């Protein structure tokens, strides 16, 4: 303790204190932060419209209405099709939990069988786009070059050149596509969730959609130039030029000039 008291005026003391404080805060956060709740899988019966209807009444009807006809706070689901349900529920966006500028993706609330049942129920309400087949969304069967051309003219203005995402007005945003599954990307193009426009078969054919998916999938291979720095363009490049480049070089300058100053 005495040794500590003697060193409290050392010029390294503030740095040591700061590090200690950061460590304590970080440690406390790690211990106390709420862990994400895992949705308990409920027992499912047969894969049919009736079970889907029950699930709908229990989880969705509050906003979308008892027979999915829509209310003042949520749209009608008649005719949105199974694809819309698979996208919204499969990415955790629905059921929505927080109101905000835009419904956010979160941990998925239902298991695959339940999503299928919900989709079957909504699809039974009126004709709409169906969930695409695995072949429809297979990136290996797409043409990357055509996908890039289509992505550049149709998607990049919101989702960024390689699909990292970008902002829209008033806190809304186009999300990153890096973790989206090919099926969900296909469904999003087909159904146009939230601010996104619909790209139906007249705009982008099924083959075009597969090409776009192939281009997005190709981005997961990383960059031939090294770390991508987030693929967000010159701002992150400038930031790293200052932090790493100027940081290291000033460090070296201090080292070289240290002897006499």
């Amino acid at each position, binding site marked *: 303790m005495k040794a500590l008291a003697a060193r409290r005026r050392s010029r390294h003391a503030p740095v040591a204190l700061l590090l200690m404080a950061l460590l304590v805060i970080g440690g406390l956060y790690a211990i106390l932060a709420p862990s994400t709740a895992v949705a308990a899988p409920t027992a499912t019966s047969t894969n049919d419209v009736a079970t889907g209807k029950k699930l709908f009444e229990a989880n969705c009807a509050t906003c979308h209405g008892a027979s999915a006809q829509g209310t003042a706070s949520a749209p009608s689901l008649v005719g949105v099709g199974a694809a819309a349900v698979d996208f919204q529920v499969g990415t955790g966006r629905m059921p929505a939990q927080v109101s905000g500028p835009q419904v956010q993706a979160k941990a998925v609330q239902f298991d695959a069988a339940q999503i299928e049942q919900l989709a079957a129920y909504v699809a039974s309400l009126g004709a709409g786009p169906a969930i695409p087949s695995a072949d429809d969304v297979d990136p290996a069967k797409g043409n990357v070059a055509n996908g890039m051309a289509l992505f550049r003219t149709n998607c990049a203005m919101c989702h960024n*050149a390689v699909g990292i995402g970008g902002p829209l007005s*008033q806190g809304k945003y186009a999300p990153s596509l890096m973790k989206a599954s090919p099926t969900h990307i296909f469904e999003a193009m087909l159904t146009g969730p939230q601010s996104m426009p619909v790209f139906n078969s007249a705009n982008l054919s099924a083959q075009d959609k597969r090409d776009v998916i192939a281009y997005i999938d*190709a981005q997961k291979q990383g960059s031939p*130039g*090294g770390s991508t720095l987030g693929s967000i363009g*010159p701002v992150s*490049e*400038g930031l790293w030029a200052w932090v790493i480049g100027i940081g290291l070089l000033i460090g070296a300058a201090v080292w070289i000039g240290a002897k006499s100053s």
Partner: protein
Amino acid sequence: MSTTTRREAGPAAATADYLDQRTGVGTAVKAFARKIFPDHWSFLLGEIALFSLVVLLISGVFLTAFFVPSMNETTYSGPWAAMQGVQMSEAFASTLRLSFEVRGGLLMRQIHHWAALLFMASIVTHMMRVFFTGAFRKPREINWVVGFTLMLLGLAAGFTGYSLPDDVLSGNGLRITDGVIRSVPILGSYISYFLFGGEFPGHDLIPRLFTIHILVVPGLILALVGLHLFFVVLHKHTQYPGSGRTDSNVVGYPLFPVYTAKAGGFFFIVFSVIALMAATMTINPVWNYGPYDPSPVSAGSQPDWYMLFLDGALRLMPGQAEVVIGGFTLSLNILIPAMVIPVVLFAALAAYPFIEAAVSGDKREHHVLDRPRNVPFRTAFGVSVLTAFVVLILAGSNDLIATHFHLSVNDIIQSLRVLLFVAPAFAFWITKRICLGLQRRDRELVLHGHETGRIVRFAHGEYVEIHRPLDDDERWLRVQHETRRPLEIEPAEDSRGVRRKGYRADRFRQRLSRLFFEDRVEPVTPAELAAAHVHGEHDTLSVGPAPAGAHSAITQGVEADERNH
């Protein structure tokens, strides 16, 4: 004796002798080798800029061997899958070839681009050092302007180089430039047609930019770097204040061998840091953006960091500023952020040495640097200009701030519009207060010495904390500077009540001078120091011995103290 040594001299000496006899280079080498430079890490910041320029030249020569500066159309058939069969300009195709087919090409491209970012960053850092330490004062004002011009040329080099690959990102930058040019009243569209060789984008721009980028700008930069360094040699280098350092000497090490080794080594450090960054971090992945086509713009489109403040100014400006006069549109919404704001900021920067000299009326030469705290107005002014730049840079990155911090772009823009005016003013005020506070602390330290943490009780019950007086070097650093005081002028009327000519001009100068020098903390004078020492006699008496022998010293101190009172 001398003949034998000459015969034994090695090949190096023989070569030197050969050269000296024919060119007389020995005198120059002797003078340069013995030239003294002061030593401080911050004097190496300019060297970072110089060395990254060398890296730029080396890597740039490599790139010109493969780059095709042409806007002729071609169809890609190289190894990059996402570009197969895509129509593009030869400039873009050759950039792709450089990246994916030329051995080491991508590394060289990335070295060139990272070096460019570091070149500008080190110029700015170097300028900050020069500004905040007052190294621009007489006789170095002209060299400040040379350096400032080098910074502008660096911007020009960066901008022209950024546009060469003819990708979507740089094409968008050119489109914005075209818009800015067209916002110039009356002449705008003529200048635009002249520059682009017709309607944007035309077919002439890339070859024109190429000539500017590889010939005109580097030539000017090299010439001005030569002038810049010549001035450094001519004026001799400035030095930080310290004991033994005055305006008429230079305290440091000779160029040879100390600085030739240090600077030579530093070149390799700079090169290796750039190579390390280029080898591990992607920069300007043009294959992500695709060949230029005026229709698409992707989210996250920004210029390189040194141009970002201009983009930020454009993003901040409200669109309502566009006015229509008699059928002619005056695009003040573009003219103000893209032309007026940068001209104001840059003009203030370039003219500052002359403004300060005029206000202070100081005609003497200065070779000892200022400590930034001792010149509160200048330091605060510099920080507030930097703050304005930072606000504009943040505005240029508003979309990324929005996505990364989950904020609304609209709110960010509104806040930054306010901050652009409030933040520099606040930064000015707080910096000035900090400077004055640090000066007061220096005064305090000089007068009372370091706190030692030792509390002593005297026989009659008084407690004092022992202060250790500063040594001569420490004290000199804190008292060597002179403070400028605001101008004192003659009264408006003489003793007979007659109005004095030139009073109004004098009063204006006085007001300016007050703005600069009104708030100040005077350094400790020898008289004040002597007075403080008499007052604090008991401190100095008992400070010497180590804690083991402290007891007797304190007793003596008490006796001395009692005698004094």
